[in-house]
């Protein structure tokens, strides 16, 4: 258990030293979101209608950005070998990485999603549903992304392969997440969508670290 916390603390410390990575994903999220009013026009009712989808798609894409360095740096400097030999199971190493990704990308995106949604004229009544969905959805993304990042580790052009692998797996998250925010904007109950997101997270929580752990072992062979 100490080893797991040590790993998490190391990830956070490294991220603090290289703050650009976290800031990069966040800036991408804002810039990509800000392009939509320019492309489709500033009419408030059009924007409000599209806002949940825009926020969700931008969050998905922004969360992808740090993924190829998630294991890449450790793989290249030999730290991954050391982690796998430390006695921690591969799946626990992967879970630590996923937790760090969520804290460093998911949580900042969650904080930035509110301002972006307001900028896009999303009705205030829909904000809790949007943020609640994103809280569950970004955690799913971190877990799925970690598993896929471990699978493409060591592959040539892994960075290109990664989005192709992750994005199809995140479609349920996108569908239910955007539907929840959409429904809340039109005054519909959102409990069902959020519970489905929670169910997806509950499935990802045990499966993704196990898959990632096996993939890490294979990558080091």
């Amino acid at each position, binding site marked *: 258990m*100490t*080893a797991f916390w*040590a*790993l998490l603390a*190391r990830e956070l*410390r*490294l991220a603090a*030293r*290289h703050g650009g990575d976290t800031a990069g994903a966040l800036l991408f999220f804002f810039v990509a979101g800000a392009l939509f009013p320019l492309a489709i026009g500033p009419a408030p009712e059009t924007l409000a209608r599209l806002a949940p989808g825009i926020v969700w798609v931008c969050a998905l894409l922004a969360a992808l950005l740090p993924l190829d360095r998630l294991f890449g740096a450790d793989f*290249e*400097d*030999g*730290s991954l*070998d*050391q982690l*796998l*030999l*430390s*006695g*921690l*199971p591969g799946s626990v190493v992967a879970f630590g990485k996923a937790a760090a990704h969520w804290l460093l990308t998911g949580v900042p995106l969650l904080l930035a999603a509110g301002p972006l949604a307001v900028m896009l004229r999303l009705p205030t009544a829909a904000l809790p549903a949007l943020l609640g969905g994103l809280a569950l959805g970004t955690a799913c993304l971190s877990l799925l992304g970690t598993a896929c990042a471990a699978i493409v580790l060591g592959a040539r052009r892994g960075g290109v392969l990664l989005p192709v692998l992750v994005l199809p797996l995140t479609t349920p998250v996108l569908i239910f997440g955007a539907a929840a925010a959409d429904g809340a904007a039109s005054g519909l109950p959102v409990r069902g969508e959020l519970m489905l997101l929670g169910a997806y997270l509950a499935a990802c929580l045990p499966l993704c670290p196990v898959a990632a752990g096996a993939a890490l072992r294979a990558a*080091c*062979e």
Partner: protein
Amino acid sequence: MRLIAEAISTFRGDRLVLDRISLYVPAGGALLLLGPNGAGKSTLLRALAGLGRVDAGRISFDGSDELAGKIAYLGHLDGIKPGLSAAENLAFAARVAGRDPASALDALGLSRLAGLPARMLSAGQKRRLALARLVVSGAPLWLLDEPTLGVDAASVAAFGAQLAAHRAGGGVVVAATHLPLPLPDAAELRLGAP
């Protein structure tokens, strides 16, 4: 605490890299892997560490097949995070192993560099830091791949003292090297040319 490997064979693609290698190292013993480049020294070390694939054969240490957490491995890569200071790198290794890092820095003459980010260290200093991590790990089985590459004579001597202390405590060392290592009365295993 003895290391036994029986008839280890490993393929890379369809080429047989290790052909039924068997070895035995008693507690406190040391084994040098010798042989030309490409003979499979690194492959054998990674196989022993459980990082590489073993297509046939059996490895046991201390009477058990479960080697997780008992191994300190030093490969060609140092495994040092350039963004962390020397002390933080060791402290992480120590916390993962549940041990105290302070003594190791002194032992390899690194205490003056402790606060420096590891990316500022020279290649030899990074290697010394990686050697210090072996001590910190407290693992009974050390697997070393060219451990003293780029390390100065004084530090090699200091490392020799660490190796002696490790072996006196019943630890086992297996090292692949082309350079002379301070490992008195180590057995030798010569791997054939590819």
